């Protein structure tokens, strides 16, 4: 009986194993290839490491080359310079607005909320050209400041929505008793709300960090012609354009661009998944 039961479950396991392999193998193949010497990479597929393990040779040359000579090292730094301030700025501005929308009474609050939700789904494309022109006038093209502000503007509606939903769900007695005790809104915000919201702030921060880290379009439009300030995805895209067949470089460069997101994913998986799920609306 037990064996028959196990046997009947075999197709289920096989299907799930196949799915897991299909999702793993492409990344694994890239990873393995990035350590292979150039000439090996072109004379045989990466899977020969499994079929002929004795012929396997590994090198760090590809990484050295992309990091030092192809500018991926600089791009790595640029990605941090772009992503960290943007995340802090977006979260700060969004938290203030979300607090007002959740716990302050004023006329037009409902309307403002609907506006914020409506703006979530406005595609980036609808804003790019006028901002590009303003940036040209102000000389903000190709500057980190320009990208920080742009990412903050684009990320805000979703951030406000995410934080407001969490803030509004906190028990109202907490705030009422604080106000009765004479607390100002500022005290309620800094002493009561923020400490209670650490989990949602973490999810929001992880989400925004990865969103900006992985962005191509905004970087392409506002930093497109300025290689020295390009973040990783933009730099990688430029490499694909200029060295489309140099797989020893592309594999290593792609992996360099993936290290941080994968690290975040593996270490902060809980917050990451929560942020992504909440971000469903952003699409």
């Amino acid at each position, binding site marked *: 009986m037990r064996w028959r039961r196990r046997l009947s479950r075999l197709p*289920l*396991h096989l299907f*799930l194993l196949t799915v*897991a392999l*299909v*999702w793993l*193998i*492409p*990344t694994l*193949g*890239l990873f393995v290839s990035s350590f292979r010497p150039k000439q090996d990479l*072109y004379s045989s597929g990466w*899977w020969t490491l499994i079929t002929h393990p004795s012929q396997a040779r590994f090198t760090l040359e590809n990484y050295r080359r992309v990091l030092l000579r192809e500018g991926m090292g600089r791009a790595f730094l640029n990605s941090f310079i772009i992503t960290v301030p943007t995340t802090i700025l977006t979260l700060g501005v*969004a938290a203030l*607005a979300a607090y*007002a929308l959740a*716990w*302050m*009474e004023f006329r037009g609050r409902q309307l*403002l909320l609907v506006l*914020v*939700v409506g*703006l979530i*789904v*406005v*595609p*980036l*494309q*609808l*804003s790019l*050209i*006028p*901002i590009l022109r303003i940036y040209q006038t102000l000389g903000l093209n190709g500057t980190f400041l320009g990208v920080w502000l*742009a990412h903050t503007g*684009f990320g*805000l*509606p979703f951030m406000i929505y995410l934080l407001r939903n969490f803030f509004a*769900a906190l028990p109202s007695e907490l705030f009422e008793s604080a106000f009765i005790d004479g607390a100002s*809104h500022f005290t309620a915000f800094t002493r009561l709300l923020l400490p209670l919201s650490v989990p949602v702030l973490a999810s929001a921060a992880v989400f925004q960090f990865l969103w900006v880290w*992985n*962005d*191509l379009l905004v970087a392409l*439009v506002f930093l497109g012609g300025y290689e020295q300030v390009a973040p990783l*995805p933009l730099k*990688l*895209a430029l490499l*694909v354009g200029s060295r489309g067949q140099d*797989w020893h470089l*592309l*594999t290593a460069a*792609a992996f360099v*661009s*993936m290290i941080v*997101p*994968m690290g975040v*994913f593996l270490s902060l998986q809980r917050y990451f998944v929560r942020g*992504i799920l909440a971000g*469903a*609306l952003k*699409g």
Partner: protein
Amino acid sequence: MRKTRVHWLYLAPALFFLTMYLIYPSIRTIILSFYGPRSQNFVGFHNYITAFTSPSMLVAFRNNLLWVLVFTFFNVGLGLVLAVLLDRVRYEVLVKSIVFLPMAISYVAAGVIWKFMYAYRPTYAAQIGLLNAIVVALGGKPIGWLIERPWINNLALIAVGVWVWTGFCTVVISAAYKGIPKEMLEAARIDGANEWQVFWRITIPYLKSTLAMVTTTMIVFVLKVFDIVYIMTNGAYDTEVIANRMYKEMFLYQNYGLASAIAVVLFVLIVPFSLINIRRFRAQEAVR
């Protein structure tokens, strides 16, 4: 709650950003869409006529429709199947993490990963792309996955999108699936329903709103799809999509009028789904 004017202090920074980066530029884009390439002369609906009739835009429309149908079907379908099947095995978390991993990396990196999978070399050379190595090992001729138009290359691009997004669908649907009362499923099984009937009569109706949500999310994403196409083919060999077309008109040809018109078209396509999203939001508010 107390009534003060202090709320403006909290709202001001956000209102500045929303106005400067979303509201004003959106209105401005709509206006620019009625002007020529350099925004100097009024051209009426000329840009819109071009947007709906030029051959490259027609190809883009066709491809976006293909993306909407195939991408959405496979993502929601696979997500549902995986959510239900993974619930029955002990290694659920592991497989979920594996499938979810591509969500963490950029589309550019995903594009490079798959460009390598699709790598094509002539018959006499050793294949270094896994897919063509399999094709050749099975006795076939190597396939130009990103070149063969119109179906193979577009489907190859869509497959990359599915690879990235299936994890998201799986996790969302799985969370809802676990909300189905176990007694309900058990009761149906005891009453003699087979797994197939349980799936169609209980699971699907129960998950209806989640599936609808995931579907609209996928459609909104897919209408805006850009990075994957930009990095893998840049629209060559009839793989163009609307967002890439918009980018080209803006950046390559600096035809701001036409680019604006395409952006507006994109926006109008997304609006119905955005309305569904807003309604869902209002419904949540009502519950509170």
